[in-house]
């Protein structure tokens, strides 16, 4: 799995960080998403899928191998 995020679309809701804190973070200066782990291990896939599905601005895209 490979993740990309759209920082222009992100509204800083923080849902992804609450669900998968090892994969997503928010920038200090404006609360916009940043990726900690663009290719997370299989144990994190369920959380990452959930984060992408509930993101209010659909700013997370998953590319499955």
């Amino acid at each position, binding site marked *: 799995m490979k993740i990309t995020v759209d920082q222009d679309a992100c509204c*800083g809701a923080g849902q992804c960080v609450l669900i998968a804190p090892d994969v997503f973070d*928010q920038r200090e*200066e404006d609360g916009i998403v940043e990726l900690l782990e663009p290719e997370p291990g299989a144990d994190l896939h369920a959380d990452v899928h959930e984060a992408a599905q*509930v993101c*209010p601005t659909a700013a997370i895209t998953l590319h499955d191998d």
Partner: protein
Amino acid sequence: MSPQEHALPYPLTPESALEPPREWEGLRRECPVADVHLPNGAPAKLLTRHEDVKAMLADPRFERDIRVGSTAGDAGETGDDSADLSRMVPSTGENHLRWRRLVGRWFTAKRMRQLRPGMERIAEDLIRDMTASGQPADLKASLAFPLPVFVICDMLGVPAEDRERFSRWSDTLLNLTRYTGQEMQAAQREFVDYMAGHIEAKHAEPADDLISALIEQRESGEDGLDDTELLGTSMGLLIAGHETTANMIGKMVSMLLADRSRWERLVSDPSKVRTAVEESLRADANQGFGLTRMVTEDTEVAGETVPEGSAVVCSMAAANRDEHVFSDPDGMDLERVPNPHLAFGTGAHSCLGQALARTELQVTLEVLLRELPTLELASPPEHLERVEGLLVGGLREVPVRW
């Protein structure tokens, strides 16, 4: 699509406090763009499907208007809107985006996580006071209301002792039917004066709080909020931090106790708290008015044309029970994943304070499960009463024993 004979009076009235209005299901199925009339008689279109509500809320073309439908009218009709909260903070386009990022940095999930230990202590203290004064008790007055108020007062650095005034102001400003335009303006004036004085004081003597930080952000030469934006932001945060989460705590606990097997499942497995909070947000049928958009050009919704100039009310609560998105929408699945409910809105304007609200709801539930596992409703759920007339839905009281 069956044509409607009469416009429905909005808000719709449910059978009981925790149940949805009977009309929702039929509207979603047969009349996804319904004609309604608002408390002041103004016509509007009501959206109830998940797909339509989501698209409308995320549409960058359309402006929000929280005053649509209020019997108090608009401050604009007297020509005095200088203190109109909804106009003090940029609400569209690039300006909104800039504002959102300047303020959003203070509401990140990580910052909210740092507030957790403080929130836990507040919850524990409030629960201890509640149990000390005997049962039954009103969980709303003892815990649900004071907790978010203490948290937001602490964040903003405003004294919690002034909370009765804040409650009066936010009740007045968020009420659709009870007050006149003059009363609303008077409340707004008092609130503006109070907050302007508070900002002045923080200017003179900065402390470790959000208002001081926003002042410093500007003065350090970075981009920052101007005076009006700072005032509007502080007032907006105080009001939003007041009614919404406070009411949601009461409704969440009531829904979980209304079928006590839900509560018991969480007592035995508190790791389900996060998804249980999301499910409570989804299942909340008494969410309030919904969000309004002014449609500024002819727009197609569910195969119909909504004409330019229409007020459109988006019922997130109705959308959250859409059977096309949620299986068994009228039940509660405490482990539902994913749960793309719209309780915080969606798109670029979705709730700024949602990580704060989620954290408060999670902490309150965790501490209650731990401290009062025997908690139960002290009266049958059908006896719970709704607060009437507010933009934000809530229960009058949440009577509990343990």
